[in-house]
């Protein structure tokens, strides 16, 4: 498959997965909560393109897209959200706390940033050139522990790429009410170079990420990549306080899938769409049929 097609497919897989979650939530098949990645797909796909086998990824509450772009199993993620035995964490973690191979996420904002930094440092101490990519939102940047981690990352040259997905909103709070200064300025104040781009184009993001990741890997030093992006869906489900028009305006100008679509011919798009739709519905059905976990496990 061409790069363009692969990226299209990767973004579409995330989009359809998340739509399925929102669509099926009211039926009660999922337990708990969810935070969908709709609108931000280009970030995960553009960035995680460039990681290798030994690299690690640490994600946050909005982790489904990162997980799928990392190569994570869709059925296992559906099953995790359903609390099934076959869920990637056996139903223990749920939507926000997932792990597979070298992919991790945690639901406490900010608290994974030092952990990811330590994972990066471990590589340098062992002398390999594995790196870590860690995702955070603009809202999470209120947490002080992030700055403790950045300081250590710069001091100890931890090969970590800090990705800020700046959708300029945290739950319901617009960035203007929650963030003073600038995001790149915050990284630079702690000696971590930061590159900021405003784009929902997966190719642009991939290019920026490729450069940043190469620098992190070769230089063995931390970097930040700040991406202005857009959250199209509610924070979780049905909790959007933004106006319908505001959201529509985002869709109109910055849907990563729309932006990328023109690079594929319509037939191929349709083929991919059908293939992805099939994959998602099979994964959903398979997860749904999976068994509930054995209760002893939880109680132990």
């Amino acid at each position, binding site marked *: 498959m061409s790069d363009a097609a692969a990226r299209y497919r990767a973004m579409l897989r995330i989009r359809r997965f998340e739509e399925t979650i929102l669509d099926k939530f009211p039926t009660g098949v999922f337990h708990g909560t969810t935070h969908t990645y709709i609108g931000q797909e280009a970030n995960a796909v553009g960035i995680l393109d460039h990681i290798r086998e030994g690299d690690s990824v640490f994600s946050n509450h909005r982790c489904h897209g990162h997980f799928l772009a990392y190569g994570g199993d869709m059925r296992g993620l559906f099953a995790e959200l359903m609390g099934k035995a076959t869920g990637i964490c056996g139903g*223990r973690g749920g939507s926000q706390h997932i792990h597979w191979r070298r992919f991790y996420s945690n*639901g406490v904002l900010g608290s994974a940033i030092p952990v990811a930094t330590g994972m990066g440092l471990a590589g340098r101490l062992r002398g390999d050139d594995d790196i870590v990519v860690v995702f955070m939102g603009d809202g999470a940047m209120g947490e002080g522990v992030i700055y403790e981690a950045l300081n250590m990352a710069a001091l100890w040259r931890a090969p970590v790429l800090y990705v800020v997905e700046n959708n300029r909103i945290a739950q319901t709070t617009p960035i203007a009410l929650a963030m003073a200064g600038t995001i790149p300025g915050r990284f630079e104040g702690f000696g971590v170079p930061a590159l900021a781009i405003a784009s929902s184009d997966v190719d642009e993001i991939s290019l920026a990420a490729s450069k940043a990741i190469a620098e992190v890997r070769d230089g063995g030093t931390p970097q930040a990549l700040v991406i202005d992006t857009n959250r199209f869906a509610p924070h979780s489900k049905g909790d959007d306080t933004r106006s319908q028009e505001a959201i529509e305006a985002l869709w109109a100008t910055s849907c990563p899938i729309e932006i990328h679509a023109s690079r594929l011919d319509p037939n191929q798009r349709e083929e991919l769409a059908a293939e992805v739709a099939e994959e998602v519905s099979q994964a959903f059905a398979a997860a749904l049929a999976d068994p509930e976990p054995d209760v002893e496990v939880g109680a132990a």
Partner: protein
Amino acid sequence: MSTVLESLNAGLHGAMEANESVYILGEDVLDPYGGAFKVTRGLSTAYPDRVITTPVSEAGFVGVATGLALSGLRPVVEIMFGDFVTLITDQVINGLSKYGWMYGGALEIPLVIRTPMGGRRGYGPTHSQTLEKLFLGVPGLRVLAPSAFTDPGGLLRAAIDDPGPVLFVENKLQYQRRLDDPAFSALESRLQVQEGYATAATVGVAGAPRPQLTIAAYGDMAERAAEAQLKMAYELEIFSELVVLEQLDPLGPSGDLPRALADSLRQTGCLLTVEEGTHTHGWGAEVVARAVETSAQKLGIARVAAFDSPVPASRVLEASVLPDVDVIVGAAQKLVAALDG
């Protein structure tokens, strides 16, 4: 005013109306959202200058609120999920609970920190915990939990009037509890002062025989204990007295049990503590220790709590870890049987 949520919300409205020094701080507390669990709904519309939505900086804004309190204002802080009290531990333990005392004893820190604890919503290991036990036994801090058996909004208003700092522990599922729940119409309850301004409610099935068992509980688990109480009375002929405590800590003056609890225990000689947090080193441990330290007789003792495990997300796993009505009934049965046998 029929739910715990409405009562708490009304309490905040009342407090803000009554006293211009009351400020609200927390994440996403502004209307139309009105806070993740809607406890602060309407406040920012009514008092736009006194409701401050914060960055995601729990330690930071609790510290800022401490500064407001030291300056004579009366901040009420919301921590969106109780799980995040882990982030404010230093501000609470080495800061706001000590400033009054360590600076010689004359300063007041009128600060309330509200937060919802609890699981059963599938939110997973970092959004479902019952962590108030971290802050039980912190000198200088009062820990309260509202109950549908008393007056949630009234307790919150009294906490706001308190010259010292208060951790006010709510529970996610408790919010929808009705204050006049018809399911509890067969119960009658006697209120008495527990300590300071907190209330203890002694709840029993109206017209039931003399109780064999005292159940100590608070917050949402008190409602579950009441359900268990009814079930035991009607289905198992086990009669109990439920003592609902609004104040988790201090329990009572210098090592004592709250009087309502001591009185009940003297009658029944048998104590079951009930809480949603994990078993080991929970609230019940201190209640049990005080009970045996202050009782002349040998008491029947058992504790109901969550398994010593994180709270899993999966519905079946979560249910297997958290204590529900049947677990309470089972523990009570076992306890009573052991005493009879």
